[in-house]
């Protein structure tokens, strides 16, 4: 007798769920009640499924939950450290820095540290600078003296000219 493969073909095609085969349509149920080979086929596949499901299942170890908690805590900690500063706080951070610089500048300028005697901006006090200042003072004195003597000479010349004019008259 030729082996019937009606159910096998349906199973292979995926048109039948072997786990729910008895709940399928009455026509299949009728066929199964009459066909020994198909009944055996269904029975075998159900047993395979049951055998696979009877395989011993693993359970996580006792430390699993504790280890997971530790890993999570570490991740949370890392996340907090990496959390970006909110925009307002960031603004406040930079604004306070700028304010500190402005206050320091106002204080420094008010003390006059940055201005030299001619009020021409900052200068650095060093031996070389002191020498330069001395030279400049000496030069200025010379110029003043020269101007004074020139002034005297001009006055003398004017006196002489007035005397000459008076004698001619």
């Amino acid at each position, binding site marked *: 007798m030729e082996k019937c493969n009606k159910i096998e073909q349906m199973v292979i095609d995926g048109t039948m769920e072997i786990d729910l085969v008895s709940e399928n349509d009455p026509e299949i149920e009728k066929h199964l009640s009459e066909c020994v080979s198909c009944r055996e086929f269904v029975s075998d596949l159900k047993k395979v499924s049951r055998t696979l499901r009877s395989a011993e299942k693993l359970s996580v170890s006792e430390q699993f939950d504790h280890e997971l908690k530790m890993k999570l805590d570490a*991740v949370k900690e890392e996340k907090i450290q990496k959390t970006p500063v909110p925009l307002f706080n960031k603004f406040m951070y930079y604004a306070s820095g700028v304010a500190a610089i402005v206050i320091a500048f106002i204080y420094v300028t008010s003390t006059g540290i940055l201005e030299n005697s001619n009020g021409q901006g900052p200068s650095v006090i060093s031996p070389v600078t002191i020498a330069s200042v001395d030279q400049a003072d000496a030069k200025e004195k010379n110029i003043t003296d020269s101007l004074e003597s020139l002034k005297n000479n001009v006055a003398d010349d004017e006196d002489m000219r007035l005397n000459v004019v008076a004698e001619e008259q």
Partner: protein
Amino acid sequence: MTEHKLLTDEELMFRFQEGDEASYNELVKRYKDKLLNHIFYYMKERESAEDIVQDAFIRVYLNKDKYKEIAKVSTWIYTIAINLAKTALAKASKMNKFSITGKDGENDFEIKDKKTSTDKSVIKNELNDVIMSSIDKLEDKFREIVRLRDIDEMSYEEIAALLNIPTGTVKSRLNRARLNLRDNLHEYVKK
């Protein structure tokens, strides 16, 4: 916590997204063993399988806001864990190329755990070994589906979503895989 037991995975995920950590703990409770069993088949080593499962739950925690209700939570969690396992295996495979000792020799000095000494448990261990090796002999496309359906007891729809294939294909492949296993497990199936 009792209240959480009554909620679906998706409801728990939604609550977790709102900041309820107890919902996250319930999801961990529901999936830790299932994931371990599934990932163990990839890693073949309990300790590394547990590490992968823990890492998967950490990813779930960190990426909770990325979960959208278009997929089932189980599909999302399994996808994360499977991807982590595959990445770990790929890394291990690269490392093994530079290793002096081969993979076959790794467990030569391992002492088998003989905690269960009764005849029944010995038979059960033997059956587990036969089941595992029989599944391992299957083609990739059959192996995954058998594990998901008969070991992890996922629904056809969940498997279809996870593997991104039609439900009909899941059923067809599953039955073909069972037909192959029928021959390998013949002795045990008839018992």
